């Protein structure tokens, strides 16, 4: 790989395009670890937020008033406050209360995962609810008449149909989630924006790093979009459209 790194060093000397993330070993390692952290954060939060969405949408239709009320307030709280404020609340507010003997129990990465998952999850609940409400009443009645329980109807009939209806809106929200991981920068989670800002304040190559960041996020979100649209096509039910 050395010739490649040397080429980037030459590029800097010849053109002033200073890509230290290639030729400086220290910057290369930290940028790579930042990129990896963004990928990890995104994947974990996507999975958790979808789970929250599925369970939440089920809880919303529950017969228990308390469960429905709790769901309502969860959505209100997380949808009506900025995600950065939520991150600060979890890390500095709640984090100072939840401490063990040796130190805090949850790390900044942990709080970022919790906060971002709940934030995106709140939207997912509403997205799935919209999907569930679009499933024809008659289909549910047919399931009931065949002796399906409420949970069985939800799991085997309503949700699979609702999920297909929800997919386009879900894609939007998940793309937003990947982009929102940059906010974890504020609580020092070493994701891509954080390491980039460290690099540009050390190397003073702000415009170059800004372009690198833009390209990297374009690439990451592009991958998410590509996978989601493939999934959308794969689960399409012919004749069942919205």
């Amino acid at each position, binding site marked *: 790989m050395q010739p490649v790194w040397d080429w980037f060093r030459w590029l800097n000397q010849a053109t002033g395009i200073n890509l230290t993330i290639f030729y400086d070993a220290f910057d290369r390692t930290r940028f790579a670890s930042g990129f990896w952290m963004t990928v990890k954060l995104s994947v974990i939060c996507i999975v958790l937020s979808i789970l929250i969405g599925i369970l939440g949408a089920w809880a919303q239709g529950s017969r228990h008033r308390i469960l429905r009320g709790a769901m309502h307030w969860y959505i209100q709280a997380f949808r009506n406050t900025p995600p950065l404020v939520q991150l600060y609340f979890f890390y*500095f507010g709640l984090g100072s209360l939840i*401490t063990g003997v040796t*130190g805090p129990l949850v790390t*900044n990465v942990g709080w970022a995962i919790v906060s971002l998952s709940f934030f995106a999850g709140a939207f997912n609940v509403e997205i799935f609810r919209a999907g569930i409400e679009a499933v024809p009443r008659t289909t549910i009645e047919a399931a009931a008449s065949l002796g399906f329980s409420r949970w069985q109807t939800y799991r085997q009939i309503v949700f699979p149909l609702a999920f297909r209806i929800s997919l386009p809106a879900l894609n939007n929200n998940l793309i937003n989630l990947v982009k929102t991981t940059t906010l974890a920068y*504020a609580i*020092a989670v070493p994701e891509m924006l954080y390491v980039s*800002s*460290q690099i540009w*304040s050390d190397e003073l190559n702000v415009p170059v790093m800004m372009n690198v960041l833009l390209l990297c996020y374009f690439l990451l979100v592009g991958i998410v979009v590509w996978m989601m649209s493939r999934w959308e096509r794969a689960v399409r039910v012919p004749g069942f459209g919205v």
Partner: protein
Amino acid sequence: MRIRSMLGMIAVALGVVAPGLANADAMADIKAKGVLIVGTKADYRPFGFLDPSGKVVGFEPDLAADIAKRLGVKLELVPVVAANRIQFLQQGKIDLMIATMSDTPERRKIVDIVEPNYYGSGTNVMAKKSAGVKSWEGLKGQKVCLIQGAFYNKELQEKYGVEGVAFPGTAEALTALRNGNCVGFAYDDTAIAGELQKPENGDYEMPLTSILVQPWGISVKQGEKAFADFVSKAVIDWHKTGQIVALEKKWGIKPTKFAEEMQAKYK
């Protein structure tokens, strides 16, 4: 036409003012006025801060008072901040600036920085006493709170191998330190000294030897050679007589290597 005539007027005005600037002898003016106006910090304990009665006191006001005494005039202190201190000096709002300013080549282009440097600050860590931080090497692989964009971040991570956790501002970094998110907070040693004087920080200490020392300079308006020379003699005298070291003790600042070395150099 209008623009040209306006430019002409500006040129004439500059022509009238500029020689006045060049010929001014700050020292004579100060003696004639009977007052020396010095810009110091008023928000940087213990270097310059407000005492309960609202007076600006501290390490730097004491130095300013010494210069005034040497000139045989009264002292007037003007609080300045980093963002306006150079402008205040250039505009003549202050005669002299002693305001925790690092001596850099860029600044030397716009003001005259008095030789030698009167003080220096370095990078140190603020840590809980119970954390038992003993050496920079001992911080290897440990979480250390930082301020985003600070010049020492890279060196600490690359050379000393600390795991940096950088926050947007001091308040966030200090909160993270208190919550136990990092073993120490790497920051300017003089600012840490100020933090440690606050009663709520009784459990904290500054256990290491400062690194990356940056010298501080007293400055005068550009071109005031005679005044700069006068102040320079005073600074040498401070180092020689151990006044800087004594002031560190007076204001509860941990003795710095910089002050020690300067005293040895001019003895």
